[in-house]
């Protein structure tokens, strides 16, 4: 299967800082030695390079439907494992070692809540709370604020006009869709029962 390089590399090179970055030791699949890697977590993808600053990543791990657990190792301290046991992927595990206790704990926490499905579950919950709170007689000023696209709020830009000029037509469409969706009481939620890992 061919992973589309432009999209994957493009994401790894986004200007925004990654969600977590640092040195980890990854157990090689061929030899059983641990190899030093520079790792960056971005969304549900863990990218890794041989060295920090290298242009091309060596690989990436998709953090979806996996378990991240502390793991005892005979040879390395501060080890943990990212494992999958789904049908088509068979059983597959990535053994990683951190440099110290704090780093290990931080990585395990970050990786175990990195999945798209986890974020979706959080988002569904917050959407529900937002509707519940909003329904309790918001003032006209709040209603207006509420109509703004999430993109505007998230970057804290002062006004929609500025954003429109900067990003063009795409923003207009997103904003209109956002407003329609909210006005119609429409589900932006995906509707599946989701499991917070």
């Amino acid at each position, binding site marked *: *299967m*061919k*992973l*589309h390089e*432009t*999209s*994957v*590399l*493009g*994401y790894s*090179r*986004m*200007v*925004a*800082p990654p*969600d977590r970055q640092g040195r980890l030791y990854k157990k090689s699949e061929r030899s059983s030695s641990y190899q030093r890697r520079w790792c960056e977590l971005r*969304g*549900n*993808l863990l990218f890794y390079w041989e060295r920090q600053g290298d242009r091309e990543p060596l690989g990436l791990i998709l953090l*979806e439907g996996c378990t991240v657990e502390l793991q005892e190792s005979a040879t390395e301290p501060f080890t943990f494992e990212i494992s999958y046991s789904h049908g088509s992927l068979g059983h597959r595990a990535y053994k990683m070692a951190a440099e110290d206790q704090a780093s290990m704990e931080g990585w395990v926490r970050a990786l175990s*809540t990195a*999945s*798209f*499905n986890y*974020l*979706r579950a*959080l*988002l569904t*919950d*917050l*959407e529900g*709370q*937002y509707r519940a*709170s*909003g329904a309790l007689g*918001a003032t006209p000023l*709040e209603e207006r*604020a*509420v109509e703004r696209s*999430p*993109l505007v*709020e*998230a*970057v*804290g830009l002062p006004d929609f006009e500025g954003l429109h000029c900067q*990003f063009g037509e*795409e923003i207009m469409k*997103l904003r209109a*869709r956002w407003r329609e969706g909210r006005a119609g009481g429409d589900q*932006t939620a995906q509707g599946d029962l989701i499991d917070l890992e």
Partner: protein
Amino acid sequence: TAPALHPPLLNALFFAVLKKRLVKLVVNFLFYFRTDEAEPIGALLLEHCKITKEEENVFSISFIEEPDRKYSFECDTEEQCQEWIEALRRASYEFMRRSLIFYRNEIQKMTGKDPLEQYGISEEARFQLGTRKL
């Protein structure tokens, strides 16, 4: 289950070739298959990209890093086309993250409470307002 789409891969230098493919959206990846096969031929990551409505029944995906290249998809109906556009635009981790930050901020303003506190993730950099750049 995903409806079958026909994605011609348009390249300015070559002829447009219409190829019938089965396309599946799974989290933030768009997998595509030859219709009879179980294994995907390839996958596109739907981050930092733009989904554009083109002519009737057609939409395209282009990536910010590669703005001149459009991956076009022709659907069976206009309705299906709109459904796909909707679904693909929301199928981005970054889109969801921005939405989450927005809701978090709004809920905090309206109720005075941080909704992420109960999950023990209030301090995480990835959910902070003002750290995300487009």
